[in-house]
Each structure stands twice: as structure tokens, then as C-alpha cells.
């Protein structure tokens, strides 16, 4: 605004005044009549000349008044008749506000309909936006809620829930605080208490790693949602609950409801006067998982108690482990456990910084990590069946092959000697016995055979064919893919080492063939591999989603269609040979070991494994499928630094079987052979 405009405005007024004046005076000039010298004071109207003068001046006044009326009329015409739509729209914008209403998030159920995640009512303290200017109320509220005043103010200033909505200050407020606020309403002008649905995990930490947890959307997620222009994109607001891990994250778009919209009429202060149209909030859909909460619980309890038992025996380095149980006929994950665990309830309504640091710290053993899909370990002897397939395929061995185990193998020369786990030696063993007794010497020979053959990497090719080194494609985030080492990998991985150390050696192959060294697999991968052995090659994509059903209860909306991700081609008699050997592991390897499985009706086939690492307790593996004659379930377990596979993991697997078939393990026999 410059003074020039003001001057221009005033000049315009002057111009109008001049026009009027000219109009008045023009008439007067025409009728000038000199009455001579002194004008009579108040001499009345008898004088013709003044009468004429008044007449023209009054005409001028008429023009003045008429002009005003005409200008006003013209402007009103343009505003009320021509631009009426534009002004009406503005008036409508003024008085209507759209408030979004929260949609309840879908529940997560197990395969039998048991609630794993649901919603519970929670008391929420809200504040209207103007409270932010009221220092006293903000401070008072902060004191009552036990929050810093700065945090309260920041929450009130958050506009993402819509300009007119009340702002969420605190959730899960205690009844005591709420009644204090209610009783002292005069102190809390603009503060409201509301009941709202909050995420609830009724079984506590059970299934935590599968379910994941929720939180407020991060800045990145808000941005991503904004940029996502597809039909199914969800418009998040920062107070929303959004899945941050596990199923909560994976099926966010299913679980998340669609916010409703309530159009309201408001006055100038934003008070709601009336309700107009509304779009009902659509609750998120319920998800039914393939998980059986009974088996899941047994798996978690077994894992925890066995780790505790091992620690009680003095092995304090054993602190974590995992187990996974999959239906081999369709890939449904019946149970998936990881230890240590956490409670997703901690994340409801925002996790405190301290809790978060504790949960994500290395010392706590990464409780948030789902070791069943993200833990990577050498497979150890559990790989031997696959090595057998490789040997049979590439003609390195046949089912009749025999080997002499002295306990110390020097196939690459005495300077490269390697021990069988059984330092006393297994004596003469055939290929089947090599699997049953997990004889390393047998597989050293096979490894040597590969190393010296034309198919140096036949092992790796076979492992990959079985799905190692790649994702299983489970419907969970953060799955690890493991690693199948080969010459090329070794060369590029150890860039600092000298040429000899980087080059693939025979020892690498003999390590690989017994699943030690640089091979890395996840428990889920091993479960998938054994599912393939059980089904003679048909591997389904492991999955957790069984069906999605709308919250309204209109029944199942969508069933998950199981999908074969791999059809591993091996000769039928190879399959039968390996399956038979795996049964042998259970029932022949040792009496103590067998005693844990002879007490159940179903036949079991499986393999132990013990991943060695220098200066560390070995990590124990056990992978098995049941019933061996008509496979239904494959179960894999891995206990980090838990000792030999038949000291730890095997019990976890057995407990899971016990939960499935309601046949608890009654044997307390302990195998002391030290089989790997």
C-alpha cells in the first residue's frame, strides 16, 4: 500500500466533487442576476435569481444522491446477481468443515479364530487448538499428565488431524487423571476426554515377531502415502496407527480402515452447529493367520524354557533361538517363534525412547529381530541330505557307495587333514549311514569328489536349486536370503586377502558339503528345503495369511491361494533314499534320541546340525518333518550357541510336534554321543 494509492483515491473523490460543482455552477452562471452590492440577509425567496440558483444547486444535490444510489445499485447487481455463485461458494467454505473420523483397524486372528490382535477402548485427552495460547492451561495439563509442557504444546499444534478437529494430547490416560480433569473442568477450558480404539495384543508377547507392532506413521511414510496416487493408497495423518513391522506392516493396507468424513457446519469460532453429510468410516478388514496359537505358544514356551535350561547348566552364551513350523502341503506357517521376544503392547500409543533403545540394543539380543526369517547361520549337518542329492546327481556317489571313517580325514593331503565330529571314527560306513550318523568323512569324500570333478560347483548349484541363497517369499518384511558361497563370491568378498586366501580351495568345498564355513541359511529356508524333501520336491511359498474377512462379519472376502514356488527335480529313488536315511537319523542314530520320538504315534524324519564357530559354543539345528510316511508338517529350529543340535533344537522341535499331536515328550533321556 503506497501513499500514491491513497492520493489517487482522494483525487478521484475530488474529481467527482468537481463534476457536481460544475453542474451546479453552470446553471448558476447562466442565470446570474446582479441584485447589486449588498446581498440582503435572509431576504427570503421572493428574489427570482436566488430561486433559480437554488434550483440548479438542488438539481446538483439530486444528481449527488441519485449517483450514490445508482453506484450502489450497480455494485449490488454485480455482486448479488452476477458473482453470486462465487460468493456463495466462499460462504459455504466459511461455514463448513470436514472432520475425519477414525476407522478401527482390523483384527488379527489365528487359524481357529483366536484373537491375536484386537482393539481396546482407551481414554484419550484432546485439546482444541486455541489452548496452545493458554500458558496456564498447557502447564496445568502437562502437570496432570506428567508430560513436559513443550510436548503438550507440540501435540496441540499438530494440525494433521484437520484444522477443526481436537488435537490428541495423550492416550491411555488413567481414570484418575480423567476424573481430575472432569472435576476441575473450569481449569481445563478446551480440554476434552474421548474414548478411542487402541491396538491391543491380548496374548502379550505371543506371536510378537509375526504380528509385529504399530506406531505413528513416520515422516517418510506420510510422504510416501502422499506420493502414492493409486486407488488403494491411504491418506495417513500423523496421529494414525500404522503397521511398522510384521503382519501389521505387511498387510497394512488390509488392516487399515478408511477414515470417514463428517461434514459439519461451524460458526466463526469453529464450534460445531450442525452435522451435514457424512461418509462412514470403514473399519479395516480382519486378517486370519495360518498360525495356530496353541502350537505357537508351545513353540515359544519350549524355546524359552530350553534356552533357560541350557543357561542354567552354565552356558550363558546361549541367549537366542528360533523355530518355525510349516504345513508342507500348502506352505501355511503353523508356528513361528523367535527368542528373545518383546510385547507389541509396548508400542501402543507411541513407544518411549528408553523402551525403544532397550529393544533395539545389541546387549538385549535384538528382541525385535525375527530370527526365524532373518537369522542367518551355517546350516551345519542339516545340509547333508542336499549334499547327498548333489552327489547322486553328479555321480560323485551312489546309494551303494561306502567309505572308511577313521575320525581324521586327509583326502587333500595330511597337511589339510580334517576331523569327523566323531574323532574315534565311524569305521566303514555307506552313504545312508553317512546321513544317519552324520559322518563327516563320507561328505568330505563327496566334497573332494566335487572339487576334483568337472562340476566344481555342483554343490552350490544343487543348494541354489533347493532355494538356498534366495528369499522364500514369505509374507513378512525383512526376510534374509542367506548365502551360498562359491569361488566368485570368495574372490570378491575377501578383497584384502592375498590371492591364495581368496581362491576357492578344496577345504572350502569340504566345509560347504557339511554345511560349515561360509554357508548361511535361515531357519525358514531349511524348513522349506525339508518340506521339499518331504513332498519329493514340491515347495509351497511359506505364508502367514490364511484369509481376509471384512469386519462387518459378512464372511470371508478372500482366501490366500497357496502357491508352489519350487518344484525340485530329483530322481524318485534319490528322494526315497534320503527320506529313509532321515528316518534313520531319528530312530537309529542313538537310543536316547530315538526315545523322544518313539513315544509318539507319528513317524518322524529329520536331521540334526551343529554349526561350529571358533571360540564360541556351537549353534544347534534340528529340522524334521512329520508324519514321515505321509508328511504334513516340517519343523525347523535353531538355538544360537545352544550346543549340539541334539542337545537343544531337537527338543524344541519335539515340543512343537507334541503340541500339534497332543503327544507331549515323556522321555528325559539325554543323548551324550555328541552327534553333530
Amino acid at each position: 500500500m503506497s501513499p500514491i494509492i491513497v492520493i489517487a483515491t482522494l483525487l478521484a473523490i475530488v474529481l467527482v466533487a468537481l463534476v457536481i460543482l460544475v453542474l451546479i455552477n453552470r446553471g448558476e452562471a447562466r442565470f446570474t442576476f446582479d441584485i447589486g452590492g449588498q446581498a440582503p440577509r435572509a431576504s427570503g425567496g421572493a428574489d427570482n435569481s436566488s430561486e433559480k440558483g437554488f434550483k440548479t444547486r438542488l438539481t446538483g444535490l439530486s444528481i449527488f444522491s441519485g449517483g450514490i444510489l445508482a453506484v450502489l445499485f450497480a455494485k449490488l447487481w454485480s455482486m448479488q446477481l452476477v458473482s453470486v455463485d462465487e460468493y456463495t461458494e466462499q460462504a459455504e467454505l466459511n461455514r463448513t468443515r470436514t472432520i475425519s473420523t477414525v476407522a478401527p483397524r482390523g483384527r488379527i486372528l489365528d487359524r481357529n479364530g483366536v484373537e491375536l490382535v484386537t482393539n481396546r477402548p482407551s481414554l484419550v485427552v484432546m485439546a482444541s487448538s486455541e489452548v496452545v495460547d493458554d500458558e496456564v492451561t498447557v502447564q496445568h495439563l502437562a502437570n496432570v499428565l506428567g508430560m513436559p509442557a513443550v510436548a503438550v504444546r507440540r501435540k496441540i499444534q499438530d494440525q494433521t488431524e484437520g484444522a477443526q478437529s481436537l488435537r490428541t494430547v495423550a492416550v491411555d490416560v488413567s481414570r484418575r487423571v480423567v476424573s481430575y480433569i472432569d472435576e476441575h473442568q473450569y481449569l481445563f477450558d478446551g480440554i476434552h476426554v474421548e474414548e478411542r480404539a487402541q491396538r491391543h495384543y491380548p496374548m502379550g508377547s505371543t506371536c510378537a515377531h509375526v504380528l509385529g507392532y504399530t506406531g505413528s506413521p513416520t515422516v517418510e511414510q506420510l510422504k510416501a502415502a502422499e506420493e502414492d496416487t493409486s486407488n488403494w493408497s491411504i491418506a495417513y495423518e500423523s496421529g494414525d496407527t500404522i503397521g511398522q513391522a510384521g503382519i501389521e506392516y505387511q498387510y497394512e493396507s488390509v488392516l487399515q480402515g478408511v477414515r470417514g468424513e463428517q461434514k459439519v457446519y461451524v460458526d466463526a469460532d469453529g464450534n460445531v452447529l450442525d452435522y451435514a453429510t457424512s461418509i462412514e468410516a470403514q473399519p479395516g478388514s480382519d486378517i486370519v493367520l495360518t498360525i495356530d496359537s496353541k502350537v505357537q505358544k508351545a513353540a515359544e514356551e519350549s524355546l524359552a524354557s530350553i534356552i533357560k535350561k541350557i543357561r542354567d547348566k552354565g552356558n550363558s552364551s546361549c541367549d537366542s533361538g528360533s523355530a518355525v513350523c510349516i504345513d508342507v502341503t500348502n506352505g501355511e506357517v503353523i508356528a513361528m517363534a523367535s527368542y528373545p521376544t518383546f510385547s507389541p503392547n509396548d508400542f501402543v500409543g507411541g513407544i518411549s525412547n528408553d523402551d525403544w533403545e532397550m529393544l533395539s540394543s545389541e546387549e538385549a539380543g535384538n528382541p525385535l529381530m525375527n530370527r526365524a526369517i532373518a537369522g542367518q547361520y551355517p546350516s551345519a549337518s542339516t545340509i547333508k541330505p542336499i549334499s547327498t542329492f548333489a552327489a547322486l546327481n553328479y555321480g560323485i556317489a551312489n546309494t551303494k557307495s561306502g567309505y572308511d571313517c577313521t575320525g581324521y580325514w586327509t583326502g587333500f593331503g595330511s597337511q589339510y587333514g580334517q576331523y569327523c565330529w566323531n574323532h574315534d571314527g565311524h569305521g566303514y560306513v555307506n552313504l545312508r549311514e553317512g546321513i544317519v550318523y552324520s559322518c563327516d568323512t563320507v561328505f568330505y569324500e563327496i566334497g573332494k569328489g566335487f572339487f576334483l570333478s568337472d562340476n566344481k560347483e555342483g554343490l552350490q548349484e544343487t543348494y541354489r536349486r533347493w532355494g538356498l541363497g534366495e528369499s522364500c517369499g514369505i509374507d513378512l518384511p525383512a526376510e534374509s536370503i542367506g548365502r551360498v558361497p562359491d569361488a566368485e563370491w570368495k574372490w570378491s568378498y575377501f578383497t584384502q586377502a592375498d590371492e591364495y586366501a581368496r581362491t576357492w580351495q578344496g577345504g572350502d568345498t569340504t566345509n560347504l558339503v557339511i554345511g560349515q564355513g561360509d554357508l548361511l541359511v535361515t531357519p525358514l529356508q531349511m524348513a522349506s528345503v525339508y518340506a521339499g524333501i518331504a513332498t519329493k520336491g514340491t515347495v509351497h511359498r511359506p505364508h502367514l495369511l490364511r484369509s481376509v474377512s471384512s469386519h462387518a462379519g459378512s464372511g470371508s472376502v478372500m482366501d490366500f491361494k497357496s502357491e508352489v514356488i519350487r518344484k525340485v527335480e530329483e530322481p524318485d529313488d534319490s528322494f526315497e533314499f534320503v527320506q529313509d536315511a532321515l528316518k534313520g537319523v531319528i530312530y537309529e542314530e542313538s537310543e536316547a534320541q530315538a526315545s523322544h520320538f518313539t513315544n509318539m504315534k507319528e513317524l518322524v524324519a529329520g536331521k540334526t546340525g551343529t554349526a561350529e564357530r571358533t571360540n564360541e559354543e556351537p549353534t544347534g539345528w534340528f529340522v524334521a518333518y512329520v508324519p514321515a510316511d505321509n508328511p504334513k508338517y516340517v519343523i525347523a529350529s535353531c538355538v544360537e550357541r545352544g550346543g549340539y543340535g541334539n542337545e537343544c533344537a531337537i527338543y524344541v522341535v519335539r515340543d512343537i510336534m507334541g503340541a500339534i499331536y497332543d503327544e507331549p515328550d515323556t522321555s528325559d533321556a539325554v543323548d551324550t554321543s555328541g552327534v553333530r
Partner: protein
Amino acid sequence: MFSRGSGMEGIGEKAHTTFSRGAGSAKGARMSSVGITQVVFLPQIVPTLMLIAFGTLIIWSASLTIPEASFVRHVVGIVLGLMIAVFIWRYDYRTLANLSTALLVFDALLMLMPRIPGLGYFAMGMTGWVRIPIIGFRFQPSEPAKLVTILLMASLGAQYNGRIESLRDYLKLCGILTIPFLLILTQPDLGTGLIVLVAGASIIICAGAPRSWVLVTIGIVVLGATLVVVTSMTPGLPHVLKQYQLNRLIVFVDPSVDPTGDGYNLTQAKIAVGSGGLLGKGIGNATQSGSGFLPEAHTDFVFALMAEEFGFLGSTVLLGLFGWMLFSTISLAQRVDSPFAKLILVGIVTMWSFQLMQNVGMCIGLMPITGIPLPFVSFGSSSMVAQLMSVGMVQSIWRHRPKAA
């Protein structure tokens, strides 16, 4: 200072024959049956009463949503105003022609009343109010002061019989006008001051001031006003205008400058008027004024309220009634002979026209925002009483016109 005007009665005697020449025959014939037209100037009173009735309806509808708009108080104001108007109507205005000094003193007294300790009433940022002790009656003396100033200027201007010959007389008239103007500015009430200035100037011009003098005067006034505005906007120089007054000028040019204060008011008023459309939203359905978006919807922005509820149709009726009333009054001014009566009517017509322009103009963005009420419509007893006093004055001029014997 002022010589008492010589014989108003005499003028009346002379005038009476002149007047009756035009209307006598028709009027005389129907004297007994239409006696009321002899004493009441119907063409002016009818549209005025219709305007008041319309205004009452508007205030009633405002009272539905605005607690401050007391319908009872509005009606009380009208009744009080009508009573005073009847008194003035019966009073022979001509005696005022010789009371210039008394009028000036009375005028000054009215303007200074809010400054008198014990009388001045200050509350909620209001200025220019007087509260009569014991009774507790509050009013704005500047409202009746407008009429008193008109009477004062008319009584002075009438002395020159339509032709001001001497520059001294002209300057004297202008000088006298600045007295009530400056006194009003002290209240401070620039809006009322402008009305007084314009009405007074209109009287001086119609009293026969030569064109060149008037032009020079207007030039000086505009220059002075510009100087005042410019110095007020320049840091370091004396600020004659208050910041809020400057803001009103600024937002008049660009309402977005002050979206929460006056700019907001202007924007909301325009939305109210525009969204009224052809037929309006109906009584009680005005969302702009009813839900508090439009401030002062019953006083300063009452036109916007009316335009929102009754639409273009209502606006036309309102402007039509004003037009009817104004042109009737002008026609009366043309018909009466006495220059004093003519000048009073000129002043009153100018006052009404200017207030109409100011008030409606600010609602539709044609004029800067000032706190000037819409005559006969805005809520507020002081304004209502003062305007009805003016009506009484017009009627008194009709009643005391020279009649046929």
C-alpha cells in the same frame, strides 16, 4: 458574532402567497378530507416509516443469533425517536434561524459532553458516549450534533439569500464549520466528522458560494488530507491518523493485507452480500452473520446482514425506499421558499445520502470501513433518535410552510 436574522415571520408571509399559487387550488378543494397531508409530508414520512419497519424486521432477525442485538431496545429507540420527532414536528423550525449563536454553543456542548467528567462513558473501547447519571441512559451526543450542525450552518447560510458575495463571509462560514468538525475529531470519531463536514460543505455550496472559492477550498482540504495520510504512513513524521484508521484505508485497497482485522471484516461483509443472491437466504438463515463470521452484523454491517437474508430484492427495496425518501425531501426543498428551510433540507439529504453511501459502500467494498450506521436500520438508539429528529425537522418544515389563507 451573528446578527439575528431579520424577521423570519416576514419571510413566511411573503412566501405563503408564492407557495399557494402552485398547490392551492387542488389542496383547497380537498382540505377537509385529506387534512393530514396539510400537516404531514407523506412522500417523505411513508418511505421513512417503511424503512424503519424493514429495519425492525432486520434487527429482529439479527436478534435471533446476536445476543447484543436487543429487539426491545431497538423498538424503544424508535418509539423515543418518534416522540421527539413529533415534538420537533410541532415546533416551528423558523425560530431556529435566529438562534445561530445558541446553536453553536449547543453544538459545541454536545461534542464536548463525552469529555465532561461524570458524563463521559468509556467501556469496551467505545468513545464518544455519554451516560446521564442517576437514569443511567447512554447515548452518543455526536448523533444529534449532526443535526444541530446542519441547523447551525443552514441558519448562517440562509443569511446570504443564495449568493455569497464576500470572501470574508465565505471564510467565516468555512471557519464555523471547522469548529464542530474539529470537536468531533477529538472524540475521536472521524466518520461522524466526515458526515458533518460533507453536510456542512453541501449547505455552504448551496448557500451560494462562488465556484472558484469552493474549488480552492476543496483543493486545500484534499491536500491537507493527503499530507495527513502521508505523514501518518511515514515513520518519523507526526502521526495524526491512528494506526487502525490507516489500516482501514489500506485494507480498502487490499483486504488481504489484514485478513484477521478490518480486511477480514470487509471480506466477510462482501461474502455476506454476494451470497445473498437474488432472493436471499431467508430470515434466520444467514450463515455469514448468523454464525459470527460477519462482525457487527446488527450495527455497522447491518446492510450486509440484510443483503444476505433478503438478497438483491431486499437491497433494491432498501435503496428504493431511500431513493423515494431522498427525492421527496429534495422536491420539498425545491418547493419551499425559505432559504433556511432549503438549506436545512439540503444538509439533511446530504447527511442521509452520505451515510447511505458510506455504510452500504463499505459493506460492498466501495468505501473504506468507518463506523457509520445506516440511517433508520442500524441497531443503536442514538442514531435512530437523531435520524428521527431529522425526519421531524423535515416534517416541521412542511407543517410550517406558508399556507393559503
